[in-house]
């Protein structure tokens, strides 16, 4: 099958070490106090000025970055957001904002339209205000986020909902998915709670209880992934990269530290106030080391029965174990839950069960004499 242009971009970027995606946290300030928040609890230093952020954008454009994510903290707390977006527009990025949406009003929607912002991703935890505000710990925040969603959708701005699943909202993903569907808005749901950028583990205490995780993965939001995982071949531990970190993605924090990805806090490759971004990207030893890591280096994963279900993350490994290659309890727990969910999904769908477990059924498929369905790969 021929590659789509997006696949071609991503493949070329990785092969040529072009940071095709960049994420800039312009501030770590936020007026919400979500328990699962990945921002470090202590953070010092002076935020990059408007001029410094614009210089970073110019350097990124010269390096080949096309997809830009501006986030925080709460990105709308940057008073100069319009100047930053104007520069991003002039430099022809495809720009995405991550926000809780509470500061979005008509004037800001007009600004987003004028600056050709591609997408606004809004953190939205439940359609139930009580559940949402139990997480944000800000009364009235649910209504404001909803209002922002309505304003943006009405204006034709692409909106995506982002919902980390925690012990507070694990039971409400179905309603949330239905809500998103009814508004024709894509939704990203993730039960993987990360340590903070500085490696503090307190966020993990709000993760979905282990016994509930398989059920969360069985909810409708994950249906297509369950199908894909069921059909996926066994994990390969070859020369390919674990992900795009430091190969095709780059992260810059509010004071100008450069990392291979957003979650690799503490693994700074240099600071844009001291060295040009292009120089850091091309010659930092930290980035070079991350770039050299391949799947085959994950020795501890090679005999894992859950490997094909695993979204191994070097940053998670770094935050928990201070190595980039070690499994962590939370990654392994998530993969196990995904396997259980796939197995349960197959059990519930008769065709899956027949194909996977019945050798006669499998033979029928292979010989083309049965119902014509592809034979199920070994699971």
């Amino acid at each position: 099958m021929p590659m789509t242009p997006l696949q071609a971009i991503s493949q070329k970027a990785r092969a040529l070490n072009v940071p095709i995606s960049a994420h800039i946290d312009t501030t770590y300030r936020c007026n919400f106090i979500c328990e699962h928040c990945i921002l470090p609890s202590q953070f010092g230093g002076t935020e990059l000025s408007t001029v410094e952020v614009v210089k970073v954008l110019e350097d990124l454009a010269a390096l080949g970055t096309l997809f830009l994510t501006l986030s925080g903290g709460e990105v709308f707390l940057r008073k100069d957001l319009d100047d930053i977006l104007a520069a991003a527009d002039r430099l022809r990025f495809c720009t995405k904002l991550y926000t809780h949406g509470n500061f979005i009003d008509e004037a800001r929607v007009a600004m987003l339209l004028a600056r050709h912002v591609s997408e606004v991703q809004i953190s939205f935890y439940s359609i139930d205000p009580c559940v949402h505000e139990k997480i944000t710990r800000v009364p009235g925040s649910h209504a404001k986020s909803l209002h922002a969603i309505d304003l943006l959708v009405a204006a034709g701005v692409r909106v995506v909902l982002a919902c980390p699943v925690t012990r507070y909202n694990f039971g409400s993903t179905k309603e949330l998915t239905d809500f998103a569907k009814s508004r024709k808005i894509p939704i990203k749901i993730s039960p993987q709670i990360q340590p903070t950028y500085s490696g503090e583990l307190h966020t993990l205490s709000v993760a979905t209880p282990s016994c509930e995780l398989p059920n969360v993965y069985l909810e409708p939001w994950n249906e297509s992934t369950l199908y894909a995982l069921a059909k996926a071949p066994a994990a390969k531990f070859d020369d390919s990269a674990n992900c795009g970190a430091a190969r095709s993605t780059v992260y810059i924090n509010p004071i100008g530290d450069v990392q291979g990805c957003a979650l690799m806090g503490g693994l700074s490759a240099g600071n844009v106030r001291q060295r040009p971004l292009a120089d850091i990207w091309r010659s930092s030893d930290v980035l070079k080391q991350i770039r050299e890591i391949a799947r085959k280096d994950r020795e501890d994963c090679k005999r894992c029965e859950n490997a094909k279900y695993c979204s191994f993350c070097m940053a998670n490994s770094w935050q928990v174990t201070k190595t980039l290659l070690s499994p962590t309890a939370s990654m392994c727990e998530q993969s196990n839950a995904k396997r259980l969910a796939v197995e349960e999904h197959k059990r519930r769908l008769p065709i899956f069960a027949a194909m996977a477990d019945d050798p006669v059924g499998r033979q029928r498929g292979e010989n083309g004499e049965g119902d014509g369905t592809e034979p199920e790969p070994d699971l």
Partner: protein
Amino acid sequence: MVGEKTQASASRCRYELSPDIAWRKIGGEAFLITRDGALTHRLNGTATRILELVLNDKTTDEIVATLTAEFSGAPDAILRDVDDLMTEMVSRGVLVKGGG
């Protein structure tokens, strides 16, 4: 005659990148994407060169002159190719007609 006239006026045209387009040149090829992420285009080396000349505010006849020098081709054939590409890019919403 009518065709010649159209071509003559087209040759003085300037085009601009549509405000809805984001783009980068990666490994000699231009990748363009509508800012809503809905449509992507991948240009080969020659089309990428033409796009760069458009972005440098060159008229169609200036683009043809540059390409004729760079690729030592026949100006008529190059003009036809450039015109075809411009028409295609305008119809896909990548370029819009500019001043001049």
